[in-house]
């Protein structure tokens, strides 16, 4: 194993690093720029380890869309120390689970293991941060796997609609394409493109390492320093400074496709996660479309008592409605999505949606509605904190657009939101002139009046 060939000398980073401790969370930066966040959690004999890289589809442009995600796949293709036939099995053999994810602002990798085995994660992640092979043969076999992944996504009408929505909503900013990338780019990208992207963004100074679990934090820090401390910092990162210009007027897209069911998405431009209005927008979303889950692995609650459910589903125009207010590094979208009920049209749903949104623009919500949203968030926060994997996700994810304190302070910030705040953000952001409306129109008679 890799560790037996490395120095067994344990450095003592706690003595030379500036360490911030807050609510049981330890945060520090190693000499090579690696940010480390540790949280002890002794509820179960497990631990999770994550490496978060600040690179995602935001850092891509036409011609290289999908490259960050493809690089993520290549990190599962092995190094000299952990060849691909072996690396697959190591985590499983230790009773763990692992995966990688790429999205708008990040690429991340995690292992969750019985705590006594967590060193395996440190060995794999420190190794593949710099030593991944990108063998040409593996690049080619992964090309067809990723095209297959995209084709699976394309089978879903809501993916097709969402992709068109992003493309319409963003002109200049990298948020304008799906993380999976365009098919033409997946055909055209080369091994050198991928390897260059890897060498640019994969370095300790562009990474946040997070561990949560039943360990001793100082001991874990020493272990992380031992595995990662000798990796040299990478070069200066490319400047990605796209700023989406102001939207002047509503944009509309239509996707024609198969099936018999119509869908509608309505997306409003909203600010980034660090913005002072973000908490009020989260409360607004809860009032409109129900509480959002804070669990990485689903488990959100129902939303039948929300305003939009009553206006769209209870009235039998739609069969479900959902709101999506996601934290991002740069200004993104608040998206309301609905499945149009058999016998109705997207236009009918849109009209009812507009009428309902107008109410929250015209009149401040009741205090009870704000209180309910905060209680819901409190419950979701508790559910989300049950698993170390989920906590590791949030500590790292929040570092991608703010810092870990964003997650720690989530409930207190929400608790300070007033009815006036919610009313004001409804007026400021639910603007027709700054939204994109999308219809998925099915070929097979969807949207027609019911046969009765």
């Amino acid at each position, binding site marked *: 194993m890799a560790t037996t060939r490395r120095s067994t000398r344990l450095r003592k980073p706690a003595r030379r690093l500036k360490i911030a401790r807050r609510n049981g969370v330890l945060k520090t930066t190693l000499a090579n720029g690696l940010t480390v966040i540790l949280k002890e959690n002794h509820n179960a004999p497990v631990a999770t380890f994550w490496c978060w890289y600040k690179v995602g589809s935001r850092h891509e442009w036409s011609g290289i869309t999908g490259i960050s995600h493809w690089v993520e796949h290549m990190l599962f293709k092995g190094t000299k120390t952990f060849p691909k036939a072996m690396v697959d*099995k190591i985590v499983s053999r230790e009773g763990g689970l692992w995966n990688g994810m790429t999205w708008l602002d990040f690429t991340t990798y995690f292992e969750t293991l019985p705590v006594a085995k967590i060193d395996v994660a440190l060995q794999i992640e420190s190794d593949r941060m710099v030593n991944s092979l990108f063998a040409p043969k593996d690049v080619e076999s992964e090309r067809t796997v990723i095209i297959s992944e995209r084709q699976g996504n394309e089978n879903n009408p809501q993916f097709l609609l969402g992709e068109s929505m992003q493309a319409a909503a963003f002109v200049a900013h990298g948020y304008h394409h799906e993380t999976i990338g365009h098919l033409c780019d997946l055909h055209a990208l080369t091994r050198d493109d991928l390897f260059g992207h890897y060498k640019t963004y994969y370095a300790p100074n562009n990474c946040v390492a997070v561990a949560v679990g039943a360990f001793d934090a100082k001991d874990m820090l020493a272990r992380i320093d031992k595995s990662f401390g000798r990796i040299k910092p990478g070069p200066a990162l490319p400047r990605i400074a796209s700023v989406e210009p102001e939207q002047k007027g509503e944009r509309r897209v239509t996707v024609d496709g198969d099936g018999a069911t119509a869908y509608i998405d309505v997306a409003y431009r909203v600010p980034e996660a660090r913005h002072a209005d973000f908490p009020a927008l989260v409360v607004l979303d809860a009032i409109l479309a129900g509480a959002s889950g804070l669990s990485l692995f689903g488990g959100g609650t129902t939303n039948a008592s929300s305003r939009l459910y009553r206006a769209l589903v209870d009235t039998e125009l739609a069969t479900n409605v959902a709101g999506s207010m996601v934290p991002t590094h740069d200004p993104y979208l608040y998206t309301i999505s609905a499945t149009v009920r058999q016998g109705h049209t997207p236009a009918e749903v849109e009209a009812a949606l507009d009428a309902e949104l107008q109410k929250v623009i015209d009149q401040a919500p009741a205090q009870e509605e704000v209180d309910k949203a905060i209680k819901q968030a409190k419950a979701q926060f508790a559910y989300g904190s049950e698993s170390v994997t989920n906590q590791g996700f949030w500590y790292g994810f929040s570092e991608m657009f703010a810092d870990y304190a964003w997650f720690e302070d989530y409930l207190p910030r929400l608790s300070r939101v007033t009815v006036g705040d919610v009313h004001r953000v409804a007026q400021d952001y639910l603007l027709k002139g700054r939204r994109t409306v999308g219809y998925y129109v099915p070929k097979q008679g969807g949207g027609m009046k019911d046969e009765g």
Partner: protein
Amino acid sequence: MKAKRKALTHHVSRITDIPGPDTIHRREHPNGMVVLVKENFTNPVVVIDGVLNFGSVDVKRAQAGLASFMASVIMRGTQRRTFQQVYEAIESVGAAVDVSAGLNRSGFGTKSLAEDLPLVIDILADVLQNPTFPEAEVEKERGEILTDLEERANDTQRTASLTFRELLYPAEHPYSISGSGYVETIRALKRDDLERFYRERVGAQGMIVTIVGAVKAEDVFRMWEDAFGNWTGARTEHAPLPDAPRLTEMRRKSALVPGKTQSDLVLGCIGPARAAPDYFSAALCNSVLGRFGMMGRLGAKVREKGGMAYYAYSVLEGGLGPGAWNVVAGVNPANVDRAVKLIIGEIKRICDTKIPAKELSDNKAFITGSLPLRLETNDGVADQITNMELYGLGLDYLLKYTDMVNVITAAQVQAAAQKYFDPDAYALAVAGPIGDRLAG
């Protein structure tokens, strides 16, 4: 380094808490329900995981979807609460309450903060004991189901799965019938059909409920008994399941889902029930075939080597009856036949050749070593305890689990593969842009 390792293992021994007879509190009640409680005060959450003694197996094809339709409408109004009042109460405290039908048995589940458990139990008791099946709510639900069935017809995964079950089981076997129903059956079901099914099938007899979380066992027993102790409801027996003979030939069907860029395929045979003596051997075999590492041997061959699919894995259903044991893959329509050939090749290999000792021990280590992860959350613990009760595994099941897995031999794994899989006789359903190429 050694000293540090010691520190880690110290923590492990201190907090390891595998649920067993000493920590699971169990009570049987005169009305036929069994209540199991596991305390966990490490977080403020409580979950309830329940099993109800009815399923879509109790429904004939002409009324397909009845159990599921009824279970959905149970939540839509009671003698005390309207649909909106039910959900306002639940959602106001950020809780989740769900009742849904399953194949052999149905279930309910809740999640809430411990402080809201009394409310959640009150609502569960209300919806399970006093549903009124309001006509308007039945029609709302009917429209939602019909729209969902429209979506199913445009979904390659769901269409492939449905087609697979129709190929694998005899036409009148309940396992071949869609639990969600079909457009014509959902349209034909009446409100009174739902209520009748409820009266005939839903009751305390055979109910299993597991409650895990930050609540004292005595308190939760009292709460549950107050809410459900006087409930009887329906007392019925399940008709014995008809035979599900193993296939003696290959059956293939390609269902057309127009306009798709990917085909989904499901390929497999009838597997063991959960309580079958060779279930563990089959589970180990399934791990080798399509789970371990990156989707086992199937992932290595179809995805990693063939570059043909984003996913190719296997599923062992288990359950109370003869569930399926099948492979699932999503591939380009042009690659379906090549992928099937690779999958069949792997099935043949696992039937013909004993698994090497290292591969067997790796898979055992995965199955046993991942237990702490499966027991990390209240949901995970509740799921395990419910299964112990439902399948008669015994409350000491998890304590014996590692030993039970470790005694399995390569010969037993091979025997399970040979018993259930036949590389020449299986069902294969494909759903995608290419329709059936076989006559009939």
